[in-house]
Structure formats: structure tokens, C-alpha cells
């Protein structure tokens, strides 16, 4: 079953005078349970693809289905709801809210998803325990190390049981040892049957993926299984 189905996706940025075609017809299918690395040099269109995959942006042209749901012509609020239910984000710079605790950070998507207080507290605690931060639920992100912050972010990404976990250079800001910790967590998640899409420069991380998609100048140039 295809979690992600992209057909001839184009994305053009219109900055008034100059039109930049970031994606020039991308076809991509990702099956449930795959761990896909998207690689490519900077300026290749990776980030644009990531924004489209994560429903942070909509394509200029083409057809995109996420978990069988058509992502086109929906309102901003509907798009927000799709992100909430179907996508778990892990960012290079973690993007945790600095003034609230790890627990509250993990609770946030569940709050937006409409989960009652007690349930989301329980679940957030459980998720933090699962990533090895059961002792640090009340710590604020600023009191955590980079690797720990990324683990909070992963717990947050898992909160709504999303269809895909979308990670954007998840080890980019980490030292080698915490980086490999995070990679192991991703591998474990994959082994549990989750679908992961990882955008990365890091060959070590890419090599752990079951499938590598290489993108260059807005088109997919290589798509192979490891």
C-alpha cells in the first residue's frame, strides 16, 4: 500500500520578476513500512520536496495523495489537520518550544488533535520513556543536550501515530555519538513497521535506509534499494 503517491509534482516559486522552478515533475511512491532517504546537493529541491511531503506547502501542479487522502485544494486549516494526523516532523534544529517542558512539547500535537488532558499526559510520558527521557519530562529544552532534544522531537513526532515520520537532516546539528544514537532510534522505529522519510546529506544515515532517492535540479535522478 502506498502511503505517499506523487505524480508529476511541480513547484514554482514566483518572486515577482523571477520564477524559480524548484521541482520539475517529481514522481514518487513510498510504501508503508519503508525507510527512505532523500539525498541531493543543496539547491536540488530537497527542501521543497520535504515541504510538499509534509503538507507545509502545496504543489503548483501535480497530484499528491498522502495516506489515500488527496492533498490539493484544501484550506489552510484542513492542511493543518492533515499535518497533525498524518505527519510527524523531526527537524535539524529540533524546533522545540523553549519555554515549556519536554512533556508539554510532546503533548502539543495531541492538544491540537483534541486529545483529553489525562490521556495526552500519559501518552507523552510513555513516549518520552520510550526514547529514554523518562526522567527528564519536566526539563525544558534549554536544559537538555542536542541529542536529548532530538529525542524529545522524535517523541513529539510519534505522538499522533502519524502515517509518516518526516525527518529533515535529523543528525545535522549533532555530534557523531548522539547522531548515531538518533540513527539507531530511527532504525528501531523502522523495524517496528513505521514509514520514515529522511532528508539528509549524511551518507552514514542514508546508508541505513532501505531505499535511497537522489534528487538533482528538481527531478529524481536515482532511486534504488540498499
Amino acid at each position, binding site marked *: 500500500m502506498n502511503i505517499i503517491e506523487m505524480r508529476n509534482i511541480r513547484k514554482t516559486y514566483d518572486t515577482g520578476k523571477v520564477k524559480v522552478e524548484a521541482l520539475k515533475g517529481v514522481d514518487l511512491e513510498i510504501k508503508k513500512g519503508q525507510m527512505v532517504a532523500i539525498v541531493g546537493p543543496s539547491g536540488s529541491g530537497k527542501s521543497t520536496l520535504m515541504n510538499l511531503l509534509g503538507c507545509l506547502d502545496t504543489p503548483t501542479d501535480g497530484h499528491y495523495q498522502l495516506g489515500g487522502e488527496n492533498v490539493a485544494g484544501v484550506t489552510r486549516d484542513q492542511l*493543518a*489537520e492533515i499535518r497533525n494526523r498524518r505527519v510527524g516532523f523531526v527537524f535539524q534544529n529540533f524546533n522545540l518550544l523553549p*519555554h515549556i517542558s519536554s512533556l508539554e512539547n510532546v503533548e502539543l500535537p495531541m492538544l491540537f488533535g483534541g486529545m483529553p488532558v489525562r490521556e495526552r499526559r500519559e501518552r507523552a510520558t510513555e513516549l518520552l520513556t520510550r526514547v529514554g527521557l523518562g526522567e527528564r519530562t519536566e526539563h525544558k529544552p534549554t536544559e537538555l543536550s542536542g541529542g536529548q532534544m532530538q529525542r524529545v522531537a522524535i517523541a513529539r513526532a510519534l505522538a499522533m501515530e502519524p502515517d509518516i515520520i518526516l525527518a529533515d537532516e535529523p543528525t545535522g546539528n549533532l555530534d557523531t555519538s548522539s547522531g548515531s544514537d538518533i540513527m539507531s532510534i530511527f532504525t528501531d522505529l523502522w523495524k517496528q513497521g513505521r514509514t520514515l522519510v529522511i532528508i539528509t546529506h549524511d551518507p552514514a544515515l542514508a546508508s541505513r535506509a532501505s531505499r535511497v532517492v537522489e534528487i538533482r535540479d528538481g527531478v529524481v535522478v536515482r532511486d534504488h534499494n540498499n
Partner: protein
Amino acid sequence: MSDFHIVYTLFASSARLQRKRAYLTIAAIAWGTVAILMLLAFGEGLRRQLEKNRRSTGENLAIIWPSETSKPYKGLPAGRAIRPRVADVDFIRERLPELAAVHGEIQTWRPAVYGRTTKNLRVIGANWSYGESRKHYPQAGGRFFNAEDEQQRRRVIFLGDEIAKDLFHDEEPVGKTLLVNNSPYLVIGVMQHKTQMGMYGGPDSNHAVIPITTFRAQFGREQLNELVIEVKDPASMKSELRKLNELLGPKFGYDPTDDRAMPTWDFVKGAEMNKKILLGIQLFLGIVGALTLIIGGVGVANIMYAVVKERTREIGVKMALGAKRRWIIIPFVAEGMLYTLIGGALGIIIATLIVAACSFIPVESNKVLAFLGRPTLSPMIGVATSAILGIIGLLAGYFPARRAASVDPAATLRYE
């Protein structure tokens, strides 16, 4: 799981302003609130004081000065003098019984002597009910003259409070004998002090009133200087004046539409004019205050814009995680409102304290304040200020919040 819960949780867990910024913002709103409240309170005090002062000459009155005709009437030429006499007052009373009161007034200046003090005194001859109509209220221990005094042509005199002081200094005037034009008069009362807005001939505090019958007997004058009428219902003033002229016109030979024959000061009309002017002043003060408050509101909006900019990433993260537009907007609006309302509440407290402190200022003994009054807060002012504060708070939060909701999450999340 309601929207309210989500919004509340977001609001409660959202970052707060740095202390100094919050204080400054709140102080700006508090300052604006104090400004608008004080200006409105000042306007209200002025209005009440002027209203009181205006009423101190009398209410629902018209003063009529018999004068000269300016239109020919039934073969009579223009320029004839109209001269009603003391007896005509009874004639008017009889023919226009719906009037609350009709008084004749005769005036003269005569020397008044008490002990070694001599003053030139304005003496008014009037009917006994004049005291009530023209608010010549006696101080404790005295009285205005009554019907019997008038009937018996008693030589009794009622003094204005200032002339009483000038003549008697620190002595109690009531019961003393005052020589007016070398005739002895018994002082029966002294007027309570009042601040007058409108007057004719001079302030009431500087004249003396005697029964009109006594006046006629003493000074041998019949001709009225003024007619004073009082109506029961202020709305009827215009029609009563027309009826009066229709009554007196044929009697004295003037055209009832000739407004130069009987020039009239209509207190009711004056009161309406006054009301309009005061409303204008209050509006002006209110607008000045509101402008000051708006500056405070601009301060809040400014801070909130800065906050949106600072929290762009936070907003982007929330959006990426599935926050809907309103969940971003409402907490921002609420935050703007919060600062505005705290500042507003503070301003209201300060202004109330200032107004309360002002109530210790003695108004009656101060010549300026006797006209300006003291700042007074009214429920109306509270409602108006709260409404303006609410609107400003809402706007100051709403526009920055709209910008917050237009944040593009894709653009904010990737880079430091």
C-alpha cells in the same frame, strides 16, 4: 475537547513578555486611561457645577424687560415705550393662571447706612413669592418676606450675602435695623451663598429685596423694570411667552410679534444651549483623552508586532504540528487584551484615587473652582472608557495576531 480548552492551554503556556516591556506597555495604557478618565471627570465636574450655577438664578424662568416698540401697531407709531405697572402683575396672574408664578420687579439704587458704614445699595421691590422663584434662600435664622409683609407694606429687607457682609462685617445682620434712603428697615434674612452663572443688573448676592408694596410707598414708583414669569413645564415656555405677548400686546398697544417691545431672556432656551455647549466640551475632552489612550494602544500593538516577530518560529512550529489559524490568533488577541485590561484597570484605580483626593478640595470658597467644579466620575464615564479600552485592546491584539497567523511554517522551520 473544546476550542476553548485548546486556546486556553496555548495561552497559558505561551511565552510571556519580558518584564520591563510588559511594564512599559501596561504603563502606557494606564497613562492613557488616567488621561481619558481625568478629562472626562473634569468635563463631568464642569457640567455639574455649571448646571448647578445656572440653576442658582432660578429654573424655568423668563425675564422680560418692557422696552420700546419697533413696529407700528393699530395706527400707533414705532418707538413707543411699554410701561407695565405693579397692578399689571395681578392682571397677568389672573389671565394666565397656568403660569407657576408671575413677579414684578422694580429697582433703584439708594444709600444704605449701618453704623459707620454706608454703601450704595441696589434695592429691588418684588412680590413675596419671588424669593422661591429666584432662589433667594435664607441663611439659618432668617427668612424671606411673606405675603403679610407685602400686604402690610412692612419695611423689611432681605440682603444678599455679600452686601450683608459689606454693611455688617462680622455682625449678625438679622434683627438689625438698616437705614435705606434714611428710612429704617428691619433686616429679616440674608441669602445663602450661591455661584450664579447668569444674572441681570448684578449678582443676587449684592442686592437687597423689599416688598414691592413697600417699594411703591417709599420711592413712589409704579413702573416695573422687569417681569419675571415661571412656567411649570419647561417645554411650555415658548407657548406661554407667546400667550403673554398676545395678552399684553393689545393692552399696552404693541404688536405681539414685536420682539423689541418686550425683550425676553428665556432661561429654558439658555439651558438647552448650555447643555449643547457642555456636551461639546465633554466630547472634545473625551476625544482628546481617547487619542491619548490610542497612543497607548499603538504601544500595545507595537509590542505585539515585535512579539509576533520574535515568536515566528514558535508559531511556525505550532502550525507544523497542526495548529489551526484561530488557535494562533486568539491567544495573541487575548495577550494584547490582557495588557490593555491590566493597564486599564490600573488607570481606573489611579484616576479614582485622584478624583477621590479632589473631593477634599473646598470648591465653594474658591472663586475659580466655584465655576469649574471638581472632577467627578460617573457610571457613563466608566462605561465609555471600558468600551474604548476594550476596542483598543482588541485591535491592538488582532492586527498583530493576523500577521502571526499568516506566518509560513515552511519558511520558518528549517534554518536558525
